[in-house]
């Protein structure tokens, strides 16, 4: 005990502590701790999030082709006018919503079902749950190429069965009408385990008391699900849907590798045309405008979803 107090007591008594904290570097740090400590994080956010955002927004008002022979030229709202008149963008926007709505709803339903199953105890539960998480750990591009081969009308396994039953092969990736559902199926394979894990975590944290009370009152399993589980799980479901929506709105790799936006642009999403404008056409100004539009779509969708959580 004496060791704790003896060395510090004289300094405090002589007012030295005050002297140390008010002068020099330490004093400066002490006085501005509220600014200095968050500074690295703020700087990181600025560099990685705010700057690209602002720079993209600024570029969207410019004409700049990545030839690097000319500097960006300010053109006001011309890029936005072009965007509004661009049929390719309109189609891509529709495809983005269609893909997102179909993918997120199916993944949520499947994820919820799986979470309810895995919330119960049964032999082999741990093993199966681990197996179901494998898609999240796989390399997307490699897996997508396997899916592309499975979808192939002449060689693919799916069409092998279709043809065995005497039907004509289904042109999964070459038929404009079914290409997006075909891509959604691949997305489901990747993303359903994520939804399942989030909902499983939510289920495991639900209180037991309301269930006990409901069971005492004679509630059936369906009633428990309808009137207790789903309402209690709603905030978790919204979080899962929010994350999946943001991710689905931006999906790029699956679609690019499976269809390249085809056939005849029938699976082209906003993110894809942004990529095409940057990488293929080097049209940085217009690409930025497309990305600002995507940002607005994602922002509005996120805020809308969050309002359901309250």
């Amino acid at each position, binding site marked *: 005990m004496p060791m704790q107090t003896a060395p510090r007591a004289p300094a405090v008594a002589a007012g030295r502590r005050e002297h140390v904290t008010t002068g020099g570097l330490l004093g400066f740090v002490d006085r501005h701790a509220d600014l200095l400590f968050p500074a690295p994080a703020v700087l990181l956010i600025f560099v990685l*999030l705010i700057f690209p955002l602002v720079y993209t927004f600024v570029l969207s008002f410019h004409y700049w082709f990545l030839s*690097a022979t000319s500097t960006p030229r300010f053109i006001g709202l011309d890029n936005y006018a072009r965007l509004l008149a661009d049929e390719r963008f309109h189609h891509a926007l529709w495809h983005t919503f269609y893909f997102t709505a179909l993918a997120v709803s199916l993944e949520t339903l499947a994820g919820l079902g799986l979470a309810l199953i895995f919330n119960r105890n049964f032999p082999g539960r741990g093993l199966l749950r681990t197996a179901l998480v494998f898609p999240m750990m796989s390399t997307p591009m490699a897996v997508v190429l396997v899916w592309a081969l499975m979808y192939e009308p002449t*060689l693919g396994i799916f069409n092998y069965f279709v043809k065995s039953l005497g039907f004509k092969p289904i042109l*999964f990736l070459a038929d404009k009408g079914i290409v997006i559902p075909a891509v959604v199926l691949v997305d489901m394979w990747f993303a359903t385990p994520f939804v399942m894990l989030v909902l499983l975590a939510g289920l495991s944290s639900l209180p037991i008391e309301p269930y006990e009370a409901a069971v005492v009152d004679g509630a059936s399993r369906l009633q428990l699900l309808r009137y207790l589980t789903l309402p209690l799980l709603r905030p978790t479901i919204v979080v899962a849907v929010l994350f999946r929506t943001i991710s689905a709105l931006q999906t790029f790799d699956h679609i690019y590798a499976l269809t390249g936006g085809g056939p005849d642009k029938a699976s082209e999403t906003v993110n894809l045309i942004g990529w095409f404008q940057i990488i293929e056409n*080097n049209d940085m100004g217009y690409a930025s405008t497309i990305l600002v539009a995507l940002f607005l779509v994602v922002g509005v969708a996120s805020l809308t979803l969050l309002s359901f959580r309250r």
Partner: protein
Amino acid sequence: MDRMARRIVRDDPRSLSRRALLTGLAGLAGAYALACSPAPTPTPVPPPKPIAPPPKPAPQPPTAAAKPPAAAPAQSKPAASGGFAFDRYKGTTLRWMVLSAPWVDMLKANLSEFEQLTGIKVTIDSETWIEKLLPILTAGSDEVDFFMSNKGTYGLRFSEAGWYEEMRKFVDDSSLTAGDYAYGDFFQSALDTCLVDKKLVGLPTWADHNFYYYRKDKFQEAGVPLPDPAKPLSLEQFAEIMPKLTKRDKEQYGIVTRGGARALIPMWISWLIVYGGNWKDSTGNWALNSPSAIKSYMEYGRMLREWGPPGITEQTDLNEIFCQGKAASYINTVVITPTLRDKAKCGVADQVGVSVMPGGRPYFFSWYMSISPFTKKKEAAWMFIQWASGKKNNLRTLLSGLPPVRKSTWDEPEFKNSAAAQKDKPLYDAQQASIAGGVADWLPWVHQVLDARDAIGAVVLKAAGGASEADVRSAADKLVDQMKEIEKRK
């Protein structure tokens, strides 16, 4: 107690309310979404593709693509009489920015020969070369002395920016060019791919073109004579044999080839050129709605629809379809030849024969070596390009398994006496005929060439979908308007 503490925290004006937190989270999510999107950082440049696009110079329409190779006169004079000496720029150090490719590796392996010959040191820079090259050229810096590029991806942009040194003056200068260089020995298609606005902007490297691969057993079964390697089937003959080779009920197709809108252009170009069409007419107007063009859409479309497997897209693995025995013939690039002839990779490898494309006008592509206008070592750089594109290195190219760009290469004794030449004569005959008939300007001369490919390919696919000729003509008229609009974009 907990509840009270939470209320206190919530009532504290400095604390974060749940609403503010959620709103902030939504904002961050949005920001994250944008940040994770392909942000327009100024790095991305179309990645170098092995089969990249050489377009067509708009002001010099059909000639380049439509004419068969014309022999250009040899320009160089005997070394002794012209005062030429390879070691004239001894002690110079050059920097070459070039893609990573087997052909470049071959040169690297023989670099000591060049250094001994000239006393010039060459640094080869292939690491993210194009990303580095663009800012260097933009800055007008002399950091790079010569570089690789190609007509389709870079030709128009580099030419407009003034990044190509005119090369003909080096070729024609007997004090700078060895007498046995033989400029006239290059195939015309190879020179055409180095001509940008009638200016020679580089010297070709190795060739890439289409082949017509066929299954010997399937042809024999159907009683169809095997195609001659160097003598192309006419498109009419091709259309005659296809039904004999196609048995759709047994999933046996006469042909498999590219069917994605963008990917099919280097295949379809043969039909356009053979039927007498071209990108533009003699007055410089888009000619993609000409009768020849309409016929090319209809016939290519018919091929896909009637004799090809269903559902071909940009991503379809065509090799697999052919190698698993589903097609009697296959049109695609020459670079897949080793795969198709490898028994471990292709189930029909021992039955594969090769011939020049039906119609005899395959697309032709070659990367070329150009000198930077900003370097002070142009002549020394020319010494390297001269060496690299000379007869000896073309022979090495052929011996390494790549198609060369000089006519005389196949006649070199070292090649003729090689085991490969004895064993694979049909392959080399087909190679020569393909390069000789090659269409260098197989892409339209516009900046946004991929948009153009999509638009043209869509008309072909409309025909493939079974549209009437009137509908295809109407789509072609719209295509011309689209091309005018695409042409305006920089």
